[in-house]
């Protein structure tokens, strides 16, 4: 079936089998920041932003997103012009193996676009669907607080 999605502000068209999962469509199309962790909706490694809300692409059919807008980590910046969150994650030591990092950054981004000064509890809540086996979360929390501060300064 034909599917039209706006991905990172670019209009894209795909022709895929009806039951294609969004994660497969995205990875096959080169959006490799979308990671395959559990495939059951439990870890958040495959998270993307759908119409402003964080969702797991492993438990969505691609067809559900036909006519909608998605953001993947590729949409937030690249190595030459990284997003503030990418910088603060690196600076705070919030990245170890890095497997959870795309999902963590998108979860943080989804929080910060609506809440410029989140509390630690609000950060924990916003990141509740994203698991990290390496960092112990504290450095991730510091990175989000720092990014929020930087973003407020930049306004």
């Amino acid at each position, binding site marked *: 079936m034909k599917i039209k999605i706006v991905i990172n502000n670019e209009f894209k068209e795909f022709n895929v089998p*009806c039951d294609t999962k969004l994660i497969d469509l995205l990875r096959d199309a080169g959006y490799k920041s979308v990671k395959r962790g559990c*495939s059951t*909706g439990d870890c958040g490694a495959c998270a993307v932003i*759908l119409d402003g*809300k964080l969702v*797991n692409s492993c*438990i969505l059919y691609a*067809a559900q997103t*036909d006519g909608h807008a998605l953001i993947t980590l590729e949409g937030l910046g690249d190595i030459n012009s990284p997003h503030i969150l990418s910088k603060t994650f690196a600076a705070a030591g919030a990245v170890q193996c890095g497997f959870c990092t795309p999902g963590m950054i998108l979860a943080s981004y989804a929080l910060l676009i609506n809440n410029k000064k989140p509390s630690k509890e609000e950060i924990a809540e916003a990141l*509740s669907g994203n698991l990290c086996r390496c960092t112990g979360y504290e450095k991730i929390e510091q990175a989000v607080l720092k990014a929020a501060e930087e973003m407020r300064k930049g306004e």
Partner: protein
Amino acid sequence: MTIRNYLKPRSLQEMLEAKRKHPKSKFVAGGTLVVKSNYPDIDTLIDIQDLGLNRIRITDEEYGIGSFTTFTSIMESDIDCCGDLMKKFARHIGPVTIRNVATIGGNVMSGFNWNDTLPPLLLMEAKLVFEGMEGRRETGIEAFIENRTLFKDMLLYEVIIPRKDVGKVYYSRFSRTEDDIPTSIVAAHKDGGKVRIACGASVLKPFVKSIAADQAESLGIDPGVKYIDDLRGNAEFKRKILLASLKEIKEWAHEN
């Protein structure tokens, strides 16, 4: 079976037409359960996102929650029934990534005894409105739980919650972690000289009963109430958790 069709009807008429044409079909709402399940006898998926059911209708008498309403939408809404019970239970349905897509209709219709919606909806005397080939049908949530198969091929259209002042509400949810699926849920409010108590997750069939507060624990040892073993605990463990909540309700009822 291979999925051959993915349909997105734009009206109830189109939805019914799709159902008629494709008897081996399944509704997709948020998809959090459907996408990871395997249905060998299904060849068509009917996505209900374009039916205009992500909305909450508020009148003086009731809330009408469209079946496609997500738990995030419920948490962000002006809904205010049974104290903050509605928002409290919505908050517990998985982490934020799940609540952003999972719908109230998908939860009610997925058919597990541990579904978070069931005890609160039982307590609040919710009614369910269905659309099917034979027209619209309304039923109480208790009757639905007793006879789910009657509604197997119907679309859950709306969940209606009567607005009434029931005073303070007791709610306890036991799970291994905050975002894990529940092992026991108990919700209650005072009901004249009695307490109306709804139980789910620990028991095979969620139920609601009004009983004298001092008798609350008898619900947990009623031979008609069945517990099941699963990976979250054996039947005896679940019976003990339920009894602990029922004991707490007895004390809560005396204090409130």
